[in-house]
């Protein structure tokens, strides 16, 4: 039983707090996503406490002198938002200690409450789910515990317990935390301090619960993974004659995570299984069942996963694009495309394929980029097959899709996007180099099967035997004095490195033009060229 704190206790508490923050610094930094995700909450809180220690060094061992040093030191050294708020908490606590008489349970409770109050006042727009909430909950827990006990250690135990729980609740209060799959960094820092303050009083080392960003994210993801056994089945089995081992053996094969615990005729049974009926049937052979509970874990985990994603799903528009080639798909995704339907010139997807792409996107509003003139109609058909609100931007090529996507703003309306994207893709010229699949006559002369041909605006504008030479001729046809950016996508056997010579040549001739070459990986078209 500890009914009063001494100056030496205060010194131990502060030292312990600083040491714990230093030890947990990286972990707390990694949690930091709010208000600015710059990953320095742990560092800032630690530096703030270090400044307190410096201020306490060399002054006489006295409760009030220490309280003043805590207040001044934290204020002077407060770094970052979290440090500033921490300094305000400490200021509230210190003020009560300075004005008080004996540092007993009552005073400590009042100090924590004042710390919480001052911190809330200091923040312009207090946000819940942050360290403010944690200190508020701690103060509340202290008040409650102080009604039952005068023992400071007992009160602090309640405070620490509540601090931990409050931290775990922060993602429920603050969406950015939930989206990032973390608990609040500053709140965690405060809980770490509470734990180490208690440890200083009991002389024990408190094992701080590890909640790193990685483990949090994992625990959220864990809930979404495919489950081998769907139903969590629990019941109470009443039997005086049961052979527990035999019963266990009889249901073990039906699932996993099995537990049969108890004794004296009462056994609580828990198992994850796909066949709860069989489990229950075997149990009834042993005795009487009660409190039967069967939960579909997949549903639960999906609900949880859905509630995690909810915030993002509602407003933003999704984009589905038709494309072939890994490089092209990667670039499309980097421009905001969320769903890709495989397809292109020789493998036109069906309307059902595109509708499937639309339906599997998370948003209720979807923009479709067909990226081929033969797929535009199919895409429009697909929009009739789905209940979602769909806008088809009639892009005929990948460079047009790129240009359209630059104008895409997911938070604006479908209509606004349609207008902006339509205008944007029309400003791009597209050319392609491929091999003639048969003999034919074109405006430029006879084409033999296997010739390399350059197509611009649905017209064969150049033909030859060498892909890069044909590409060069095609590009020259497309360029004019207003051309500023040339985008080349290499595919079907070509690599960006094969284009370096041509690039150098073009850049010499058109010094103001920017040339970008990407590995598109598209089949059948060794070169796709965009000019804008």
């Amino acid at each position, binding site marked *: 039983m500890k009914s009063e704190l001494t100056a030496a206790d205060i010194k131990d508490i502060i030292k312990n707090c600083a040491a714990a923050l230093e030890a947990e610094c990286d972990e707390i930094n990694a949690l930091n996503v709010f*208000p*600015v*995700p*710059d*990953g*320095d909450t742990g560092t*800032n809180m630690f530096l703030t406490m270090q400044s307190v220690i410096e201020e306490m060094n060399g002054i006489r061992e006295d409760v009030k002198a220490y309280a003043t040093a805590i207040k001044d030191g934290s*204020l*002077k*050294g*407060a*770094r*970052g*938002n979290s440090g*500033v*708020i921490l*300094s*305000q908490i400490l*200021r509230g606590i210190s003020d009560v200690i300075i004005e008080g008489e004996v540092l007993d349970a009552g005073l400590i409770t009042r100090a924590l409450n004042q710390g919480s109050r*001052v911190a809330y*006042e*200091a*923040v*312009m727009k207090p946000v819940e789910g942050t360290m403010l909430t944690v200190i508020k909950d701690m103060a509340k827990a202290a008040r409650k515990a102080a009604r039952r006990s005068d023992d400071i250690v007992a009160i602090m135990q309640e405070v620490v317990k509540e601090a931990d729980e409050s931290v775990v609740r922060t993602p429920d209060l603050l969406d950015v935390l939930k989206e990032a799959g973390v608990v609040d960094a500053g709140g965690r820092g405060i809980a770490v301090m509470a734990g180490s303050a208690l440890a200083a009083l009991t002389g024990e080392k408190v094992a701080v619960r590890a909640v790193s960003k990685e483990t949090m994210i994992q625990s959220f993801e864990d809930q979404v993974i495919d489950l081998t056994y769907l139903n969590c089945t629990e019941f109470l089995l009443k039997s005086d004659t049961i052979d527990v081992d035999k019963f266990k053996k009889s249901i073990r094969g039906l699932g996993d995570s099995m537990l049969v615990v108890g004794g004296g005729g009462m056994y609580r049974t828990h198992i994850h299984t796909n066949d709860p009926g069989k489990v229950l049937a075997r149990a009834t052979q042993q005795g009487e069942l009660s409190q039967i509970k069967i939960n579909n874990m997949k549903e639960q985990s999906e609900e949880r996963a859905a509630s995690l994603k909810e915030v993002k799903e509602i407003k933003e528009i999704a984009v589905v694009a038709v494309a072939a080639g890994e490089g092209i798909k*990667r*670039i499309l995704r*980097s*421009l*905001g495309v969320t769903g890709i339907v495989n397809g292109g010139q020789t493998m036109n997807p069906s309307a059902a394929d595109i509708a499937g792409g639309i339906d599997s996107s998370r948003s209720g509003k979807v923009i479709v980029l067909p990226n081929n003139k033969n797929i535009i109609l199919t895409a429009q058909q697909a929009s009739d097959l789905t209940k979602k609100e769909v806008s088809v931007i009639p892009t005929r090529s990948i460079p047009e899709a*790129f*240009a359209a996507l*630059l*104008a895409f*703003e997911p938070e604006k309306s479908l209509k606004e996007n349609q207008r902006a994207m339509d205008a944007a893709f029309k400003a791009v010229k597209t050319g392609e180099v491929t091999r003639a699949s048969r003999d034919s006559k074109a405006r430029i002369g006879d084409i033999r099967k296997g010739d390399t041909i350059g197509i611009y605006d649905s017209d064969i504008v150049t033909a030859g035997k060498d892909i890069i030479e044909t590409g060069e001729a095609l590009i020259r046809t497309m360029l004019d004095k207003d051309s*500023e*950016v040339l*985008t080349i996508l290499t595919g079907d056997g070509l690599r960006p490195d094969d284009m370096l010579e041509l690039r150098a040549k073009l850049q010499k001739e058109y010094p*103001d033009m*920017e040339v*970008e070459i*990407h590995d598109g990986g598209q089949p059948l078209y060794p070169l796709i060229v965009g000019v*804008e």
Partner: protein
Amino acid sequence: MKVGIVTDSTADMPVDFYERHNVTMVPLVVRFGEEIHKDWVDLIPDEFYKKMRSSDALPKTSQPSVGDFATAYEKLAKDGCERIISIHISSRLSGTIQSARAACQVFKDIPVTLIDSELTAIVLGRIVEELANARDTGASFEEMISLAEDCRRSGRILFVVDTLKYLELGGRIGKAQALLGSLLSVKPILHLEEGIVAPRAKVKGAKKAKRELITLVKEEIEARRDKKNAKLMIAYTDNPEMVTELKSLIDEAGIEYDDLRTGQIGAVIGTYVGPGTYAIGIL
């Protein structure tokens, strides 16, 4: 009534500007590993960009401490000021004003009015200059406050970054936004919207980015009731040649303005936007 004006170093003005205008500047801190510098005070932009190029680790920044603000306010009170206007970088970009606010909890000698400019960089510097000019030509405290509010509403800053990498690493732009167009050499044109960095347009090619920036500036000015008296600012990082280039583009576009200032983006803002950035401010 003597009014003290306090701002922070992200207003991106050189030290002598504050001396000339009798304004107190509280510097933020830039750290390269163990090396600690006070923004603008002992680290001028050119040195910063040189360091940034030669250093492997990215610099880190910290807001001023509560004590820094308390000291600044105390000094003004001692010098005979009766009120203080403390105007700062957007609270959604930095905790600077949070430190200032905490300082106000302990400093009670004279009243301090805190203003979240929702802006930063050269346009904040220009607002501070306007405030100092108003004070020195006899404006009352209330007039200064309403001027500051007007400036906050009308102030704009549009900027083009070479890469979104620095904004992303510094946590000043969402990851999804940072990824947009990272594989194509897309130049995003950004602005501060309600105090945070938001994309305004995305274009391909450096030349188009400049033109688009000028178009957006023109639109901004033409949307104003007072189309003639805009104050323009051009800010650059390690690319002083942008000043002449943007000036001639502004003239070519027939944009009318009252005055045009130029300046360099300092170390703290430079940490988040990176080399190659340029900006136009409008007030």
